């Protein structure tokens, strides 16, 4: 007759001011690194921030943050642990490092369940690291969190843009707010992406050069925050008023 989980999600998120899903139609464009860097930078600026990894089959933010032996606390649901001043939640707290092969409806159920049990408390921002594509998680988050805004990540590749364009079209069709687009792994001077984004009247938030030192900093958030990559994220957030909604 009725699924009680759906009633409680709004309640769980009622004290979260802004929910931003970091997404891309394409995999491997740096969504998790960008979501983590945005969350860490906002926390650095003393905002109260949560980071939610919704990539159930290939979670990676726990590696970037070196979540290690942290665990959520059980109290009338689940309280996320605090890592580097962020409240953090990922499926890895339940599946461990095991492979978690999920089909569509199963992924949807897991996502609904995680949103229904996690007690974020008061947050200025909840940054959501989305899985690639425009499948279940994207449709679920749009359905379950009515006020979610999307921040899109693309690389200079025309192949990446072709895929991201489909996500943009979907979001615009569904009237889902788009914060803007970050161009990651920039290597040349091409303005192809910037021009395409402006043509469709979206905000080009900024570009991040390909950072060869980034790989070495994964798992060490202090070192990560000193990379060119993290520095560019700082500049992009500052230039764009910390992604505040209008």
């Amino acid at each position, binding site marked *: *007759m*009725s*699924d*009680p*989980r*759906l*009633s*409680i999600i709004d*309640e769980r998120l009622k004290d979260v001011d802004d929910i931003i899903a970091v997404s891309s139609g394409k995999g491997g464009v740096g969504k998790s690194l960008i979501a983590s860097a945005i969350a860490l930078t906002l926390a650095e600026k003393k905002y109260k921030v949560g980071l939610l990894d919704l990539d159930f089959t290939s979670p990676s933010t726990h590696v970037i943050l070196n979540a290690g032996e942290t665990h959520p606390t*059980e109290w*009338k*649901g*689940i309280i996320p642990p605090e890592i580097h001043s962020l409240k953090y939640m990922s*499926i890895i707290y*339940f*599946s*461990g490092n*095991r*492979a*978690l*092969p*999920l*089909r569509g409806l*199963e*992924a949807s*159920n*897991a996502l609904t*369940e*995680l949103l*229904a*049990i996690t007690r974020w408390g008061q947050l200025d921002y909840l940054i959501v690291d989305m899985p690639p594509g425009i499948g279940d998680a994207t449709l679920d988050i749009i359905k379950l969190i009515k006020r979610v805004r999307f921040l899109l990540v693309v690389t200079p590749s025309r192949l990446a843009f072709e895929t991201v364009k489909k996500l943009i079209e979907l979001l615009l069709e569904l009237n889902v707010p788009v914060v803007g687009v970050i161009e990651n792994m920039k290597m040349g001077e091409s303005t192809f992406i910037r021009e395409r984004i402006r043509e469709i009247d979206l905000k080009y938030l900024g570009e991040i050069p390909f950072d060869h030192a980034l790989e070495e900093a994964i798992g060490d958030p202090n070192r990560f925050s000193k990379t060119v990559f993290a520095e560019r994220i700082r500049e992009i957030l500052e230039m764009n008023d910390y992604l505040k909604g209008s």
Partner: protein
Amino acid sequence: MHEWALAEAVISTISRLAESEGLREIKEVKLKIGELQQIELEVFKFALTQLRDSSLLKNAKFNIEVVNAEIKCRNCGFEWSLEKEKIDKDAAEAIHFIPEVIHAFIRCPKCGSPDFEITGGRGVWIEDLKGVR
């Protein structure tokens, strides 16, 4: 899902349903809980009594039925019932919160595939609601 979170969700859903159906007092709630949720019924019932603070639910009777967890392998078609006593403690705890993580811990006993479908005993739903207008 955790017992308290679940009780909170159930109460919230009942209130919403009662409002939409114009019920001012609920007499009986029929709930079905999948075995896979591994809910501690006593804790869940206690949480329900603690959380029902409105006049809407003060006299409500909760009938709770646990539905067996049934699983069917998508690879070989084998069907089996989950024997929860055979699941280790950490896995049981994880499945309790997010039942789908069963795919990280359990394999088809016949062919070893992780590609199986939970055909029964997953989730929690309000089967029926009786009240007065």
